[in-house]
């Protein structure tokens, strides 16, 4: 029987790679008996899903305060481009 230490590692691995048959069975059996690890798995899955969802909403995120360039920052970048880039055409 897996312990929580191993089961939680497998729950995490399942987000990144396919578990072997043995790993999958071992995890499932452990989760059946263990509320803590069941919760852990749900939470890391939730975090994974939240990040996917939030990152897809990038255009809205840009409007959040602090997530756009300040005027100074913009000017600084433009200055760097003028110095570092080819002369502007036309």
């Amino acid at each position, binding site marked *: 029987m897996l*312990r*929580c*230490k*191993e089961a*939680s*590692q497998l729950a*995490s*691995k399942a*987000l*990144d*790679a396919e578990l072997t048959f043995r790993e999958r069975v071992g995890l499932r059996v452990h989760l059946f008996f263990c*509320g*803590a*690890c069941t*919760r*852990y798995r*749900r*939470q*890391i899955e*939730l*975090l*994974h899903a*939240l*990040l996917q*969802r*939030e*990152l897809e*909403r*990038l*255009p*809205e*995120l*840009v409007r*959040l*305060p*602090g*997530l*756009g*360039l300040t005027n100074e*920052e*913009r000017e*600084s*970048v*433009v200055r*760097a*481009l*003028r110095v*570092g*880039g*080819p002369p*502007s055409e036309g």
Partner: protein
Amino acid sequence: MSETLPTPEEWVVAYGDDLLAYALLRVGDRETARDLVQETFLSALKGRHGFAGRSAVKTWLIGILKHKVVDHFRRASRESPGASLAAGDEFFDENGRWKDPPGPWQPDPSEALGRQQFWEILHRCMTDLPRRHASAFSLREMEGLATEELCKVLGVTATNLWVLLHRARLALRRCLERNGFGGTGEEVV
């Protein structure tokens, strides 16, 4: 129909905010994000004649930025000494059981806290992670890199990678719970 490129200055006005948001979400700290955005524009400027208008300018710029982000994490990960992989047993006792079992979360922390707070808390917690853990987590969860590519970028084996990600998730989860993701009430996760 080819898309004519605006001037560099117009690029920054048109796309700077999007690029900054993209970078900031991944690296967390503003100075680094700004540097990456600037480097992206500089690279784009140098390569602008190779840009044949095959895709939208924004997609092209984000593509360049994505490479810069990956490079950043590659460097960050290699510059920081590898924490012993055996460390991190702080979460489990000698019987392999949780020392501090996960507490309940709200079902949708982003909704409950608002999105700005969600990201602030996440970034704060990611800053607490060792750099290699944060790099692995960000590249996996935000850049969506798969195991093989992650191993190349971070210079680790697949097994080491999964341990890194596991440690990152253990620590992050705990930090998030303590800083606003925790919940009470009927609908908890």
